[in-house]
C-alpha cells in the first residue's frame, strides 16, 4: 500500500518574468523543489539569483508567470485576492528588516497578526505573551521597536510569524541585519523551533555558514536550482 503525503510547499517548473523598466528579467527559469512537514530548508544564492522572487511566490505575495506553486496541495494560482490573504495568515513571514509596526509595542506587534485573523482580544493577549516567552523576550514586551536592538526586533518578528500557527516559516535573510553574535542566537532559536516544536522552515540567505545549520540547502543561480545539499 502506498501512502501519499502532501508536501507543505511544492513548486513545479516555476517561472517568473518581470519588467525592470522596459527590460524583461527572467528571475525564475523553472524551479522545482519540495518541502515536507518538519523540514528546514535553506535557499542559498548570490543577490540576483532569484531567491527573493522565489520567496515571494512561496509566500503567496506574487503570482508566477508560468508553472505552479502548491501550498499544502492547493494551487496558489487558482486563488482570488481574499483567499490569498487567508492563505498568508497561515504563512509566517520573517523579513530581513524586521518590518515591525513602529508605533506598536512588541506585544501589540505580535497581537496584530492575530487580530487580522479575527482572534479574540483575551486569547491573543495570552498567546502573544506565550510567544514572546518562547523567543525569550517577555521582559521587554511593552517596548516599541525603536527601544529594542536588532536581535530583539527579529525575535519579535519571529514571535509574530508564529502567532497564527503557520504551516511554515518563510525567512528572508533573518540574520542579515544583525551582528554575528546575535545572529547565532537567532539561528539557535530557529533551530530550536524546528527541532523541538516541529516548525517547518524555509530560509533564504546568501550566507553559506547559515546553510550548514539547516537540514537541507539548495543553491540557486540565475533563476534555477543548481545544487542540493543534505546536511
Amino acid at each position, binding site marked *: 500500500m502506498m501512502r501519499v503525503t502532501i508536501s507543505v510547499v511544492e513548486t513545479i517548473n516555476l517561472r517568473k518574468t518581470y519588467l525592470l523598466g522596459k527590460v524583461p528579467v527572467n528571475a525564475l527559469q523553472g524551479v522545482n523543489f519540495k518541502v515536507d512537514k518538519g523540514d528546514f530548508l535553506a535557499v542559498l544564492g548570490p543577490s540576483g539569483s532569484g531567491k527573493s522572487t522565489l520567496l515571494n511566490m512561496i509566500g503567496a505575495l506574487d503570482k508566477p508567470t508560468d508553472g505552479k506553486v502548491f501550498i499544502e496541495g492547493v494551487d496558489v494560482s487558482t486563488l482570488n485576492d*481574499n483567499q490569498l490573504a487567508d492563505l498568508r495568515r497561515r504563512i509566517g513571514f520573517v523579513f530581513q528588516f524586521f518590518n515591525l509596526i513602529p508605533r506598536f509595542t512588541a506585544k501589540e506587534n505580535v497581537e496584530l497578526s492575530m487580530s487580522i485573523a479575527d482572534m479574540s482580544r483575551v486569547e491573543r493577549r495570552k498567546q502573544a505573551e506565550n510567544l514572546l516567552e518562547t523567543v525569550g523576550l517577555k521582559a521587554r514586551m511593552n517596548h516599541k521597536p525603536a527601544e529594542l536592538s536588532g536581535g530583539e526586533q527579529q525575535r519579535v518578528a519571529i514571535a509574530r510569524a508564529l502567532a497564527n500557527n503557520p504551516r511554515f516559516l518563510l525567512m528572508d535573510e533573518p540574520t542579515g541585519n544583525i551582528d554575528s553574535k546575535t545572529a547565532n542566537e537567532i539561528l539557535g532559536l530557529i533551530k530550536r523551533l524546528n527541532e523541538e516544536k516541529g516548525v517547518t522552515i524555509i530560509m533564504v540567505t546568501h550566507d553559506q555558514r547559515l546553510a550548514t545549520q539547516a537540514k537541507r540547502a539548495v543553491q540557486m543561480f540565475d533563476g534555477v536550482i543548481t545544487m542540493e545539499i543534505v546536511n
Partner: protein
Amino acid sequence: MKPRDVFSYSFSAIRLRKLRAGLTTLGVVIGIAAIVALLSISQGLQATITEQLQKGFATDTLIVSTGGGFGLGAEGAMGTAGSGFKLFVNDTQTINEIENVTMSIAIIQKAGYVQFGGKNRTVTIVGVDFAEYASIYSSTFVAESGDIPPYPGNMTVVVGKRVSDPWKNETLFCNVNDDVEIKWTNATARPPKNETYTGHVSAVLQEIGGFGVVGPSDSAVYIPISKAESFFGTDECDMIIVKLENDDKATIDSTSKAIRNAFDKQVQVMSATAVLNILSSVFSIIELFLGGIAAISLLVAGIGIMNIMIVSLMERTREIGILKALGMKSRTVLMVFLGESAIIGLMGAAIGIGSGWVLANVVAIVFRGGGVFMGGNQAAAGAGAGGMTITPVLTPTVFLGALLFGVGVSVIFALYPAWRASKLKPVEALRYE
C-alpha cells in the same frame, strides 16, 4: 479583522500624527461650526420673526385691500395704484353677507404726527371700531394703562407703547389723560393742507413687539372710525379685516374667492397664514443660501482630508505591505483608511457643532446688545424693530445633519486614497522605501 480592531488600528494611526490630524480636523470643525452657527441663527431669527408676526396676526382673519401687498399696514395711503378701484367703509356690509364671515371691520390709516409738549412724533393714525378691533385682536389690542372704551367719544385716542415710551426708558412722550395734537397733511388737496385736532389719550397699549405688518402696532395711534372719516375727509378705507368662523384652509380659500368675486376681482385678499407661508419660504431660501456658503468651507476641508490621506498613504505604503503579508484583506485595508477619516470627521463634526452653537449664542448676544444700544440712543429706532431678541435654535435635524455631513464629507473624500491603499500589491508595497 473585527470592526473594533479596525477602529483601534485606525485610531492608533491618527494618534501617531497628532498635529497633522488636529489640523485636518480643524478644517472640518470650521466647516461644521459655520453651518451650525448660520443655521441655528437663521432658524432662531425665523422663529423670532414668525412669533412676532403671529402676535399681530390672527390666523382666522383675512385682509381685504385694493392691492399693494401686505406693506399696507404701515403706510397704507398709496394702496390704490393701478385700477383706481376703491374700498369704502360701508363695503363691510357686502362682506358680512358672505358665508363663513363672522365680522368685518374697515380701517382707515394715514401717516401723521402726534404733537405733545412741543415735540412731534411720526406715527400711523389708524381709524377703527375699537370694540370690533379689540375682539379680533384680543391679545394685542389691550390697554396697559387706562381703558379702551367700546363706545369711544370723538376725541378718544389710544396710543401704542412706543408712542407713549419711545425711548424704552420710562421717559414718556405722552401718557393716559394727556391731550395731544393729532396732525395730518392732506397731500391731495391743492395746496396741501394741514389738518389738526386735539385728542384725549384714554389708553396706552401694552407692548406688542411685532413689526406692525398687520394688526395692532406699537407705533400707531388709534382713533374711532367715525372720527377718522371726518378728520381725513373720506370714507375710503385702506383695508377691511375679515374675521372668519374658523381657520381651516378650505374656509380661508373659499371665502377669499367669494370676497374677490363680490368686488369683481378688483380687491386683493390676503390671509395671515399666506403671509406667514411667504415669509417662511423666503427664510428657507436664505437658509439654503447661507448653508451653501458654509458647505463650501466643508468642501475645502474635504479636499484637505483627501490631501492628507494621500500623503499618509505614501508614508505608509510599507506598512500596508506588512499588513497584507500578515494576511489582511484589501477590504480591511480600505476600512482602516476610511475609519481614520471617519474618526477625523466625527471628531470635527462633534467639536464643530459645539463651537457653532457657542458662536451662534455669541452672535445672538451681540445682536441683543446692539438692539438695546439702538433703542436707547437713537430715537428714530423707536418706531421700528428696536432691540430684537434672537434665540438660536439647534434642531435635532440640524444636529444630526451636521454630524452626518461632517462624517460623510470626510469619508467620501477619503474613498479614493483608501481605494488606492487597498489596491497596493504586497510585493511592491514591501519593497517601497
